[in-house]
């Protein structure tokens, strides 16, 4: 898939009301692979933190269930971080505020994540 198509996917995700930004990260090293504009936060920070969370979630899932996760959803009082596994080692990540329609966002991320290949 082309970088242009990746950017189109990220634009569609950030078009969902409440989404502050979206990016594609490498979970191996926490680096940004592709990004959309992110409000009030550095995309490199989001990428590094999302990757660290994914690695921890993967370790816990492996110990408890012997299998890797395909999504990680962190909910907080001021917003959410959603990450969906794409082709290894890529993860599609969105940062959203509390107003975002989470069901819609999860479906969208899930559909796009598998099409990143």
């Amino acid at each position, binding site marked *: 898939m082309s970088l242009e198509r990746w950017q189109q996917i990220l634009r569609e995700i950030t078009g969902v009301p409440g989404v502050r930004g979206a990016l594609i990260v490498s979970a191996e090293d926490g680096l940004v692979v592709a990004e959309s504009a992110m409000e009030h936060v550095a995309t490199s920070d989001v990428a590094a933190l999302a990757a660290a969370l994914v690695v921890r979630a993967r370790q816990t899932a492996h110990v*408890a269930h012997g299998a890797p996760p395909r999504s990680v959803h962190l909910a907080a009082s001021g917003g959410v971080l959603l990450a969906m596994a794409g082709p290894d080692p890529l993860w599609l990540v969105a940062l959203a505020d509390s107003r975002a329609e989470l069901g819609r966002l999860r479906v969208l991320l899930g559909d796009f994540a598998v099409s990143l290949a």
Partner: protein
Amino acid sequence: MTDPPTVSPTRPQGLAFLELGERLRQRGQLEAAAMVATAGLAHYPALADAHDLLGRIRADQGEDAGAIAAWHAALECDQGHVGALKGLAFVAFRARDFSAAERYLELAVGESPHDPSLLAALDRVRATQPAATPDAAPALADLSSGLLLFDAQGMRLTGGVGPGTSADTADAASAEGAGLAREASRVTRLLGLGEWQYLLVEGTEFRFAVLPIADGATLLVSRPGTTPSGRLLAMASRAGIAARHWLERLT
């Protein structure tokens, strides 16, 4: 009418004892069936089907504790043994522990997703559960509960990660879970997201929620992938209340 089958408890021939034991059970000859199953297990102690047979016999005898022990033994041999999971669900349902029955049936459906009898049983249990036990306290102190409470040092306080799993697995999951909880707290703080409320991790065949319970204590609620995410979060919320009460009694 044919003669009853000859029972030779000390020398089961291959795995034919499974069929013989089941036939005896169905005829109501429970003592003879138990002898056949027990003798078979002496030769095949790692055979999940044999433990499952003994579980069914014990359940028919009204010995629920023996049935549960047999089915847990079956799960130790084969973590996804559908017969054992169905049996445990049946005993739980009979004891009106509907949440446990639901949990075992969910696991069975995960192993055999197209079995209409399992799906119907799961629907029946789910339909029964809200009216019968609106405030049922989750069984925290049970390795098979799928409820795991641990402290900030990654030490297990109580619970486990689900049926057929060991204390060692629960201890290892506690250690990893504490690291995951620390990471969740760090991410929300550094991204200015406020206090973290829960973390939902989903795989193809599992989902688990991790949520902070009190200072330093975290709860991990684990369910099969067949459990809807919203339902898991509702369970986690109820289990969180039970975990806080558990901690209060501890201190």
